[in-house]
């Protein structure tokens, strides 16, 4: 058997890596080590370098939604008094924190909490409540929303002070010391992972794209939480190599012909993932642009730049920068249309979505649709609405292609 056939595909390696990160946390908990619950965009460099196991309630919220438990858990949280208007990830997490069990997925209970609000301020309120409920320490790194294009010195100074303070607090809580040489090497590995991730998603610009764009939603979990490890860097490099090979052969893992290419804006509807994917795939629509591509890369060359990089995550930027991310990505990846998810869970992401959709349409010249949904609560999603709007999008994209062919 050749080496090539023996090697596991990168997506399997990534899935195993994701499982390993979760298993390691369970094992650490059993050994009596302190384990944290961590916000998805908290600087992972700190915990990775200190060897502190953390798990991610947001990832749990997505997984529970995808496995069909979203509505049940959300309803339980609503029974506790939480409004159905709140983020469904947080509702699932509140239910889990109270029930201490979840048939779809469980994560070890935390000894401390790591919060970062660069994606939204609702993280702060969510973790405030957890800290009170579980009576454990909470460390917050506040990354103020950017009201200008660049992250300036005032912000960097503020974030850096909190970064240093978080290390100090974690040292006290866990008894583990920060090794600054290790931090440097984790930062280097994170760059390697980020570059490889960027190279992998960059192949979406090929026609056909070498993969189904919905795979991004699966692979980004490791990009988000494990990118400071050598294993992740290697897995992303392997992923990029595999895509490169597919592009060279003109092949794709997307099932069927890639008739149309779209940008998908927003978090996936995990509870309706199959339907949302199949509705597109059955019409030959492939997702070839998503903000998770360019924006989950965290590029920096020193600690100050690291602080700034965490200000540039999706949703933390000013509107103009957010728009530019989408427009550049859509043009580079040659999309024929775009689908905007009005996510009932996320007031931050939804607050400018109508204007984003208008300006995106004007700047790219491609047709767009908006549909209502939710990241993990299926009650906010309507199959009929989604399908009707996708059909309308297909009609316009088809007409555009016909006109293009005539021209």
């Amino acid at each position, binding site marked *: 058997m050749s080496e090539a056939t023996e090697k596991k595909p990168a997506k399997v390696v990534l899935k195993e890596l994701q499982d390993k990160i979760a298993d390691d946390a369970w094992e650490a908990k059993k050994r009596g080590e302190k384990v944290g619950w961590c916000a998805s965009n908290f600087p992972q460099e700190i915990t990775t370098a200190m060897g502190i196991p953390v798990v991610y309630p947001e990832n749990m919220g997505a997984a529970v939604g995808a496995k069909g438990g979203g509505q049940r858990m959300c309803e339980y949280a609503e029974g506790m008094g939480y409004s159905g208007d709140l983020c469904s990830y947080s509702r699932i997490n509140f239910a889990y924190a109270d029930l201490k069990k979840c048939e779809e997925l469980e994560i070890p209970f935390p000894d401390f909490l790591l919060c970062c609000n660069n994606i939204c301020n609702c993280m*702060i309120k969510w973790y405030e409540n957890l800290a009170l409920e579980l009576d454990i320490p909470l460390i917050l790194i506040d990354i103020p*929303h950017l009201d200008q294009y660049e992250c300036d010195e005032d912000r960097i100074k503020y974030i850096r002070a909190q970064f240093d303070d978080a290390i100090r607090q974690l040292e006290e809580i866990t008894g583990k010391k920060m090794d600054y040489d290790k931090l440097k090497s984790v930062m280097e590995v994170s760059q390697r992972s980020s570059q490889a991730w960027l190279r992998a998603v960059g192949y979406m610009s090929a026609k056909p794209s070498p993969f189904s764009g919905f795979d991004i939603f699966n692979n980004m979990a490791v990009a988000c939480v494990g990118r400071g490890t050598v294993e992740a860097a290697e897995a992303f490099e392997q992923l990029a190599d595999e895509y490169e090979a597919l592009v060279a052969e003109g092949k794709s893992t997307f099932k069927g012909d890639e008739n149309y290419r779209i940008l998908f804006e927003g978090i996936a509807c995990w509870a309706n993932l199959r339907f949302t994917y199949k509705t597109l795939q059955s019409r030959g629509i492939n997702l070839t642009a998503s903000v998770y591509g360019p924006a989950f890369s965290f590029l920096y060359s020193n600690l100050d730049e690291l602080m700034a990089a965490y200000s540039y995550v999706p949703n933390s930027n000013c509107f103009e920068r957010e728009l530019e991310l989408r427009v550049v990505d859509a043009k580079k990846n040659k999309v024929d249309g775009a689908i905007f998810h009005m996510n009932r869970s996320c007031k931050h992401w939804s*607050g400018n*979505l109508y204007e984003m959709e208008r300006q995106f349409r004007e700047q790219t010249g491609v047709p767009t649709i908006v549909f209502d949904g939710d990241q993990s609560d299926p009650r906010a999603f309507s199959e009929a609405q989604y399908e009707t709007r996708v059909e309308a999008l297909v009609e316009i994209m088809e007409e555009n292609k016909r006109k293009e062919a005539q021209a």
Partner: protein
Amino acid sequence: MKYIDELKNISENPRAAFEGAIASGKKVVGVMPYFCPEELVYAAGMLPFGLWGAAIQANDSKRYFPAFICSILHTTLEMGIKGQLDDLSAIMIPICCDSLKGMGANWEYGVGNKVPVINVAYAQNRKIEAGVGFTASQFRKIRKQLEEIAGNEITDDALAKAVTVYNENRDAILCFSKAAATHPKEISAQTRSAVLKAGYFMDRAKHTEMLREITEELSALPASDEGYLKIVTTGILADMLGFLELIDKNNMVIADDQIAQESVGARTQTPVTEDPILGMAQRLSDIEGCSVLYDLGKFRGKQLVSLAQEAGAAGILFVLTKFCDPEEYDYVPVKRMTDAAGIPMLQVEIDQQMKNFAQAESALQAFAEMLRER
């Protein structure tokens, strides 16, 4: 009672106050909730004008915000799009909740650049030195923006005077609120709200003068709260007439409040510092009892229990602004804390676009009956 009608008029018709200020040649800067550095506007010789939404129907704003954003933002944007705020020299928008983060761009594209946006960022990690430093850095940036708009420098002296004016106003608000708590016959819930709200649309020094006068008059009168049910309110705002009527109708008196638009900001004075900006930033670190500010340990709940106990309140009304995430998160732990303290709390969901308060009426009536039977 002296000044009451005048303040009611201002509160019910802020447009007249706005137009009056413009006609007098004064520049006006819109100030959205929460905790913008109004003193800078005042020190620049301009009028800070509170923008807490309005009891109007939002239509055009729905081209920008989805329906599930609070009415404060919807109706403020609606007024902007309709050109009703064109005479503002600028609008200050803090970015302290997820919905407010979208307001700046929606204003910019919905209203246009005739009313420039001044974004107000401040630290959520506000108890640490770096947090105070960051807030101060942002206030300094805003100071420069306001100087350009005003066309004059904001001197430290002028700023120190503005800080004093605002501190005195905060004290006057608390004194008035205390006096009103024992005089519901003279100061109904509707009147109390109007008197406090008027301050957002007028010179704070004048507001202080009027509040002091009213408080003095009330203090000279015997208490009139016998038979009234003492309650404490908590939330973002509680100025909807339909809602206030229900409080009056059920013979309730607001013994104290933890409402962002009313006493929350008033409880915290700006420390007098050599550099007034530092004192203003420090105040942000000291404010308690508001859901949009980082609150480790949920001091809000503890403060609410204390307020209710000190006021001898029979119950608490959690006045929930519809679609307000921070409030919806706070409700659960705050309710647990008030339950643990044995103080009944009722949640009433309100919206500035509401015309029918039938549901709130039934709930409030039942709550009042329950409290009276205890």
